[in-house]
């Protein structure tokens, strides 16, 4: 399909080593690692600018306090007063996903850099989902011991239904890390492919002549709308990941 047009929408997700080659050593500095470091540096600068602890906060401090206050209220309303303990992880996940998503949308290609969305790799989102799931398991078994298994049996289940309900609940519990990782990863991939495909329509429409340029203009207008939607999706996916993580931790802490 991409052989004739030479525009390959999957090329932007390719991991390529910046030095050395992928076959030689397991530790290669790739473009993915570079963009993770960029995300880290951005978060660091963002947080550092807002941690002045002024009595009358400036604009920057209000931004940072808005984010921390937002995550704090999310964690305390979902988990309860104990939720403060889990705020570092939820906050880390939220900030990393939000910054990585938004950085992936930035038009770095205009200045010649190859943009890369860190969260469009299943490995990255999968690791974050596994850490969230591990926190749930560790906290659950630490606090409740084998009583944690009562999570799989809702209150007032008839005796006859117990084995089946237990299996269904267990299945829906085990699927959680996959759904958590898959949602973020596919949302990012789908958005970027959509933008890339319609971007190729613009170029091909201009080259085609005839009615082509009209198609180009329509595609360009469509891209503007899609980009606005993508910015919204970036924020929503970060929010949903953090919200579901805190909900799952709530299951482990309070057992229904």
């Amino acid at each position, binding site marked *: *399909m991409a052989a004739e047009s030479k525009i390959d929408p999957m090329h932007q997700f390719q991991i390529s080593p910046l030095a050395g080659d992928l076959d030689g050593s397991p530790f290669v500095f790739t473009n993915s690692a570079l963009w993770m470091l960029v995300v880290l540096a951005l978060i660091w600068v963002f947080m550092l600018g807002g941690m002045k602890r002024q009595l009358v906060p400036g604009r920057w401090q209000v931004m940072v306090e808005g984010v921390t206050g937002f995550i704090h209220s*999310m964690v305390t*309303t*979902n988990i309860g007063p104990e939720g403060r303990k889990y705020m570092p992880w939820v906050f880390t996940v939220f900030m990393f996903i939000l910054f990585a998503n938004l950085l992936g949308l930035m038009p770095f290609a205009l200045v010649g850099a190859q943009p890369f969305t860190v969260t469009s790799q299943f490995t990255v989102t999968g690791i974050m989902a596994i850490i969230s799931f591990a926190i749930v398991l560790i906290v659950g078994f630490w606090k409740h011991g084998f009583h944690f298994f009562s999570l799989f049996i809702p209150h007032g289940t008839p005796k006859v239904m117990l084995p089946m309900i237990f299996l269904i609940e267990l299945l829906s519990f085990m699927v959680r890390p996959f*759904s958590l990782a*898959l*949602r973020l990863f*596919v*949302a990012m*991939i*789908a958005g970027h492919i959509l933008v890339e495909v319609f971007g190729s329509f613009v170029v091909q429409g201009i080259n085609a002549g005839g009615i082509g340029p009209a198609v180009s203009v329509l595609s360009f207008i469509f891209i503007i709308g899609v980009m606005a939607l993508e910015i919204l999706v970036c924020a*929503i996916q970060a*929010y*949903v990941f953090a*919200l*579901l993580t805190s*909900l799952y931790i709530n299951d482990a802490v309070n057992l229904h």
Partner: protein
Amino acid sequence: MDFASAQVIGAGLAAIGVGAAAVGVGNVFGSFLESAIRNPAAADSQQGRLFIGFAAAELLGLIAFAVAMIILYAR
């Protein structure tokens, strides 16, 4: 029918699921808006549940997309 054309048709059929998820997401936000206008005072407290429902509905569409991609790039 050769493999390549069957692949493209299969991927297209798998993409129908994305449309079904669109109905689901629209239903989630539509129902929320309908009840939020009736009782605006209670709307803000239910925003978390709104996004949980949105996430659950959206995930199924994204799975359909993933299946379409797997079929399309299968060898």
